[in-house]
């Protein structure tokens, strides 16, 4: 047997930016047919490393080997030419163009007079789509495809070049479980033809399901590589953050108060139907289900972004009609949205202004903004929520994910809400800050807030909730107390199996 040579080997990669040593001697190798996980907290250097591989940044020292040769990657084009292909977290597709044109973007086959060779394009695209076993065709407009299928288009693009290494950056962030299975099948196929795969994800269960080895970065430094089969989640977590993480259940140890929010028979078209539940003061109710189960849509309806087609909403026992976010805010309903950067914050604005955004109109003295009062509010919540920023002048976009999330939460707390809805509280937030956000949510409940948490991560739901509402296909299947819930029963409920069938 001949010894197998790695398809990609990094040797002592160093990259510094003014004031930061982003990568400090990173070395690891990817074998052909291997799925190699790259893990680390946000800021550990994963994205910098990927930019070095993609030719966006040049390393200060160290070498990249592809096969036998040492290569310098000057720009993204060259990375592609050398067989390094990226499947990005944010898809980079032209939505108005067809699937075929997107797959061959920049490389459309030509005929005389610069004409596109549509026949050749269709034939080659069909062959690739067949290999991927997908259910859309070459002429479909990419904007009409689901996110999962759009990702398949990106993967198809990787197959047009002779890819040696394919890098997946958080590929499952917006996929349903069924779509994940399809993605994992495709990864298995790539593996089978000897492609080396680098798989970046925060999701442990995926890492342990599909990867062969795991390399871990912390603060730009390489922490080591372990064989997936010989390690545990706990070990990996410890390597990532250098300490143990408490992910145990967290039942409430305090008294529940009055019912703050009650929803009866709420429906919104096909998105969710006949939904009833209540949230008490001092209680965290977790909403768990697959993407598309209708959880976010319920939150959007309560916040006035969608108009319900039937049903009633009660706040503190009084029926209310919420027709716009302004109504919702006036009634004390707050939403910390899933898309923190897009919907929760004005990234270019400073921390103080972000925090006082919904109430700046009420705080003015005459026509002028009351800056002093704004700073006082900011300082209060910086202390209460432990927001780490040098000053209120810092732009929100410059903060870490965890601190950004705290700004959004602080924004609503300063309005003294009756109900706080948090959609995906820790999406894109690194492991260390995650547990801090979890603690914060628990603390808020203990202080008497009524909190609704929507999450796609089971450990998170189990960890923070007093009660868990399981949703499937727009319906509430079952509501569990934190004592009675088990992983199995929860998985059954959100898969539409078992539990009480909705009457």
């Amino acid at each position: 047997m001949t010894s197998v040579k790695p398809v990609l080997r990094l040797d002592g990669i160093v990259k510094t930016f003014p004031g930061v040593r982003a990568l400090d001697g990173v070395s690891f190798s990817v074998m052909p047919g291997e799925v190699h996980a790259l893990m680390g907290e946000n800021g550990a250097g994963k994205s910098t490393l990927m930019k070095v591989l993609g030719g966006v940044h040049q390393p200060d020292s160290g070498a990249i080997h592809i096969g036998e040769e040492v290569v310098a990657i000057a720009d993204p084009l060259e990375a592609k030419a050398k067989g390094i292909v990226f499947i990005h977290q944010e898809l980079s597709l032209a939505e108005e163009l067809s699937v075929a044109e997107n797959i061959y973007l920049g490389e459309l086959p030509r005929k005389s007079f610069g004409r596109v060779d549509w026949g050749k394009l269709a034939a080659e695209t069909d062959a690739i789509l067949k290999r991927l076993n997908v259910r859309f065709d070459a002429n479909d407009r990419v904007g009409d495809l689901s996110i999962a299928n759009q990702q398949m288009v990106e993967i198809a693009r990787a197959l047009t070049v002779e890819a040696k290494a394919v890098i997946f950056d958080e590929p499952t962030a917006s996929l349903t479980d069924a779509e994940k299975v399809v993605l994992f099948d495709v990864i298995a196929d790539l593996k089978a033809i000897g492609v080396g795969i680098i798989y970046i994800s925060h999701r442990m269960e995926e890492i342990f399901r599909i990867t062969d080895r795991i390399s871990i970065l912390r603060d730009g430094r390489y922490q080591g590589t372990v064989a997936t089969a010989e390690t545990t989640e706990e070990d990996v977590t410890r390597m990532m953050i250098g300490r143990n993480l408490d992910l145990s259940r967290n039942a409430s140890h305090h008294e529940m108060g009055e019912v703050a929010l009650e929803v009866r028979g709420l429906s919104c078209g096909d998105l969710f139907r006949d939904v009833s539940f209540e949230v008490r003061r001092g209680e965290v109710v977790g909403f768990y289900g697959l993407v598309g189960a209708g959880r976010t849509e319920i939150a959007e309806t309560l916040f006035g972004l969608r108009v319900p087609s039937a049903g009633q909403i009660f706040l503190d026992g009084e029926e209310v009609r919420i027709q716009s976010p302004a109504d919702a805010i006036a009634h004390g309903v707050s939403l910390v949205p899933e898309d923190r950067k897009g919907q929760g914050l004005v990234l270019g604005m400073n921390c103080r202004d972000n925090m006082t955004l919904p109430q700046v109109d009420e705080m003015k003295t005459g026509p002028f903004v009351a800056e002093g009062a704004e700073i006082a509010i900011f300082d209060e919540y910086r202390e209460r929520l432990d927001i780490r920023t040098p000053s209120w002048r810092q732009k929100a976009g410059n903060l870490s994910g965890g601190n950004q999330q705290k700004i959004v939460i602080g924004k609503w707390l300063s309005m003294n809400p009756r109900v706080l809805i948090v959609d995906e509280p820790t999406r894109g937030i690194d492991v260390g800050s995650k547990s801090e956000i979890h603690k914060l949510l628990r603390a808020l409940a203990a202080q008497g807030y009524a909190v609704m948490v929507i999450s796609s991560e089971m450990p998170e739901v189990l960890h923070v909730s007093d009660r868990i509402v399981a949703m499937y296909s727009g319906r509430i299947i079952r509501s569990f107390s934190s004592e009675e819930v088990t992983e199995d029963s929860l998985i059954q409920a959100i898969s539409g199996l078992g539990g009480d069938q909705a009457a």
Partner: protein
Amino acid sequence: MRPGALSKALKGGAIWGFIVLELIFFSIAGEMVSLSDKAFMDWDNMLLLLKQSAPIGIIAMGMTLVMVNGNIDLSVGAIFAIAAIVLLDSMTWPIFAGLGDRAIPVAWLLALATGTALGALNGLIVWKTGVDAFIVTLGAMLGFRGFVFMFNGENPTSHLNWTLVDFAEAQVLGLHTATWFLLGATLAVWFLMARTVHGRNAYAIGDNREAAVNAGIRVGRHMTINFAIIGFLAALSAVVFYSESGSVNPNDGQLYELWVITAVVLGGTKITGGAGNVIGTLGGVIAIQLLRKGLGHVGADTSTVNLVIGLILIAVLILDRQLNVKGKEALKI
């Protein structure tokens, strides 16, 4: 039928449906109120309408390309005027005096080259500096217009060449020369956008510029070529028009950029780029000219015409938005 196919068909055909509506409306309204006893849908009248559509229409083809590409060009009216001056003035230059009527093609080439060069200049600035096309061409609009006034002050530049006038007034197979140029420009740009790699790359760039860059498309080059093309077409429009009229005022072509953009948007091109085609634009051009002519036919004055076109433009954009969000669950803002 696929989801979205209906709204797509509606959008694609809407402008032509609108044209039919205009024709019916003005025919009936014309019968009732018009001072002239000629019918609105008279054959000669329609041929004339096509001819009158040509100056805006030829430029609009280039604007479709540039807007699909994700840019805009506000300097087309000024390029139009400069090309006209080059055309008319160059025929009087002493070095061409010996050429007789052979000076005509030389003057045409000079004017077209000038337009192409000015367009390419816009494109190069956008490419090399990375400044937004709106700003660059806004500056160019003012700057080029400055040249026009520097050349002859407030006075018109005139030169009438009867051979040229005969050519411009000719009718081949019933259609005027200008109409043929409009149809030719439409066909050429259609071919470029729908059939060539350059054209498809232009769509990709306008749709998702970052994706195009990452795919190795030479974004700057494509944009510069498209600016050169719109410069060429602005000059072509001037060449066709002034071959007949023989006199250019320094204010000629002002507001053309806005009429052109109106026609392109009416024709269904997405303002942010990535979608649109010249067939829709041709519809937009004809619809506007019909409206101008029709309102004139029933006795409305210019200010009324502008008001109506403005309202229709806004109505079209509202309608377009409605069609686009239909089917998707639209979030309220």
